[in-house]
């Protein structure tokens, strides 16, 4: 029997006043299961019980009722804690220590030998882009830099289970992007990750499954793509089209489906992309900064790498090693497809019945899906076009 990494049954937490009278029920009868290799998102507005749940999982709070098992053991068990990495919602670090001393201290608490501590400290500092600031006291760090050290300490023990409470709080877009990339790669390397956030975009980008809390109770939960899927709409992405073509498409839809197009627009470049490009250019020009620099590669000690190593590396380093691709990737990729001029594609589209979007979710039921939301969305969109393109007979018929 496979033991879930986290299992809670009827988990309840009551906060009491000075006289021990129950005042607030922060978590109510929560049942959760997180499996190995999953990136699990705990969503909810402020006060929904996310942090309380995490603190109970870590043994920082004791449940009023219900049961918790982490790796099949009590959260207070020392052996359990040896397998956990935790980044709290704020980086509560020692202001008088520098980055190296901080990581060394936490490494000692995991009983790591000194040479391992030294090596991991250097690798992690490189990864979070703070190697050049390693001798500065943390009291002088910006919030984002402290957050990066907080993340580094959470990884010092190469945890099997990583708990990240609002990990992107206080981070600039580069840091946010790096954290998200990191979560993805760690997920790919078989780590189990619990991500708590109220920044929905972050969760949507990286999580396999989510649980949405409100008032201490789970309101909804499940796989992200299932929750996000809009079956009543179809999206087609194409290279820039002439107004006449769009009009023709509109007419076809009217004729065939008796519906009208909801929106026709040109995709805008994302602000994140522009920002990352500007910062990258500044880094290439060696503009001085006292903040975090470009992060290095993820250290090898953080679990084995899988077959998609090259692809993941490419994604993780996207912000640093090349100018980011503008806008949605699919725009650039579509012309590369062996489909001839765009008009041809459209003609083929006009000639056939719209097919439901295939997202491959059934195939991924067996094992937790590692890829992140947008990547899947891209693949889904491409799959629609590819499926259409793979029917040459129909297309040629239509041409005729």
């Amino acid at each position, binding site marked *: 029997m496979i033991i879930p990494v986290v299992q809670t049954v009827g988990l309840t937490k009551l*906060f*009491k*006043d*000075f006289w021990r009278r129950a*005042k*607030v029920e922060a978590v109510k009868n929560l049942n959760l299961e997180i499996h190995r290799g999953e990136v699990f998102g705990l969503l909810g507005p402020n006060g929904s019980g996310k942090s309380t749940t995490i*603190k109970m999982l*870590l*043994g*920082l*709070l*004791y449940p009023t009722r219900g049961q918790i098992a982490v790796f099949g053991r009590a959260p207070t068990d*020392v*052996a359990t*804690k*040896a397998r*956990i990495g*935790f980044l*709290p919602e*704020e980086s*509560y*670090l*020692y202001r*008088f*220590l520098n980055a190296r*001393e901080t990581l060394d*201290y*936490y490494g*000692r*608490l*995991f*009983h790591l030998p000194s040479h391992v501590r030294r090596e991991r400290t250097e690798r992690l500092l490189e990864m979070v882009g703070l190697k050049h600031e390693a001798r500065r006291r943390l009291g002088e760090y910006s919030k984002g830099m402290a957050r990066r050290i907080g993340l580094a*300490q959470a990884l010092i023990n190469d945890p099997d289970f990583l708990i990240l409470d609002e990990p992107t709080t206080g981070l600039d877009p580069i840091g946010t992007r790096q954290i998200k990339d990191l979560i993805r790669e760690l997920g790919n390397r078989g780590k189990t990750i619990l991500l708590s956030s109220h920044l929905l975009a972050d969760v949507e980008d990286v999580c396999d499954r989510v649980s949405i809390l409100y008032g201490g109770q789970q309101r909804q939960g499940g796989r992200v793509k299932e929750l996000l899927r809009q079956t009543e709409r179809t999206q087609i992405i194409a290279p820039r089209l002439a107004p006449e073509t769009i009009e023709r498409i509109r007419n076809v839809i009217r004729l065939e489906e008796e519906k009208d197009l909801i929106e026709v627009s040109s995709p805008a470049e994302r602000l994140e992309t522009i920002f990352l490009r500007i910062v990258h250019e500044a880094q290439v020009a060696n503009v001085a900064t006292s903040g975090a620099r470009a992060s290095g590669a993820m250290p090898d000690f953080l679990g084995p790498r899988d077959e998609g190593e090259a692809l993941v590396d490419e994604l993780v380093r996207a912000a640093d090693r090349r100018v980011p691709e503008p806008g949605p990737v699919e725009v650039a990729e579509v012309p590369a497809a062996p489909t001839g001029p765009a008009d041809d594609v459209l003609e083929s589209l006009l000639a056939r019945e719209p097919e439901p979007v295939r997202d491959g979710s059934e195939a991924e039921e067996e094992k937790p899906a590692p890829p992140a939301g947008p990547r899947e969305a891209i693949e889904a969109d491409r799959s629609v076009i590819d499926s259409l393109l793979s029917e040459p007979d129909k297309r040629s018929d239509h041409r005729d």
Partner: protein
Amino acid sequence: MTSIWAVARHMVSEAIRMKIAMFFICLLALLIFGLPFVARGDGTVSGAIQAFLVYSLSAVSLLMALLTLFMSRSLSDELVQRQIFFLMTKPLPRWQYVLGKWFGIVLFDALLLLLAGAGICGMAHYIAVSQPPRDALDRQKLTDQVFAARHQAAVELPTKLFERAARERYERRKEEGYYGSRGDVNEKEEIAKLRMEEEQSWRTVNPGGTREFLFQNVRCDRSADKTIQIRYKAMATNYPPDEIVRSYWLIGDPEKVQPYQMLRRDAHDRFHTFSVPAGTVAEDHTLRIYFLNYVLSADQQPILVDLDHPYEQVRPFVIRLEPTTPVEVMFGVGSFEGNLVRVLALILFKLMFLAALGLAASTVFSFPVAILVSLTVYVLAEFRGFIGESIQYLGAEGLEGMFQAGFGLILRVILFVIPNFPSFDAVNTFVDGRNVTLMWVLQGLGMLGVVQTGIVLLAACLMFHFREVSEVSI
């Protein structure tokens, strides 16, 4: 152990960088290196050194105690500032965390005490070499009583004799009908009162009278150049107009050694120490001292005339030797430096308890409340003897029945946990040049450093174990 050591190292590192620690360290340095230039004592070099030693060691003891309590706030700080979230999610058992903190504080204390001790020792020697002794006596006192660790042999009081005499007097009084038909006479109390009278009588030497003291086990170096010291305090019961007590001393058993004799004129009601040759101690390590309440003429005849004032008739005075040990014999057994180390060890045991106390308070309370609780216990511990006596009195006279029994039990438990700091304060002993015995140090280690500190540390670990570190009180 690895985790305890990691937390302890971190604690030391934190303490070194604490501003409050820096403040205390600077204050200590200022006192240790500044006092020699202001401490004058009685005008002699030995007096100046003794004054310096008293002030500097007392300051070290007090400031280090306060610093220890302030350092123990580290735990409550980590709870408030939530660094504990990082720590308690590591494979660090809570008891190891508390123990690590305690060990770190004690380590830092030990380090500071070592530095302070070295500074005090160095400055004491600096005073000795930088100022010439006022006279030969000053020079001798410096060697024999200041830079010395002397064993103190107290005279054995004939307590059995007192008991027997008191009982006999009581029985006699009873037979003579002294107590009449009084039914309220408590035999035990009456005998105790009579015993006290017998002892006072023994301490009292009437004019022309002699008192003999026998010291055993005086294991000193009997070389010709060595001396032993005799310390006594005499009170003339009928107050002398010149406040001088005159006495004759014969030191050494005439049947075993060549006795040493001397006439003394000492201030009334004060301790006096004088040196005599160590050869007065017999080979069997016994020393016999005769105290005579009269002066001798030049031809060794007892007269009641002061030799220095031959024409002045000296009134006969009754002399009472005080206090509990009327005469003490002291002889060197160790070095000044070794003695200083033992004094510092006793201070360290006190700090060990205070570190545990501060941490225990911090596991429950936030900083201001924790420091208030700790300071209260610290003050209680400094006045523990007085409080213990008061409570005993309360138990005997003020409370009755079950309430007395229950309240008394609670108080006894509290008093057992609260240490009696003065009983392990060796500063005055050290400054007097008396040996701080290893047994005393071991008692301090056992009682303060192990039992009482252990109880408080255990309580701290238990309280912290059951505490929700992320507790929110609505």
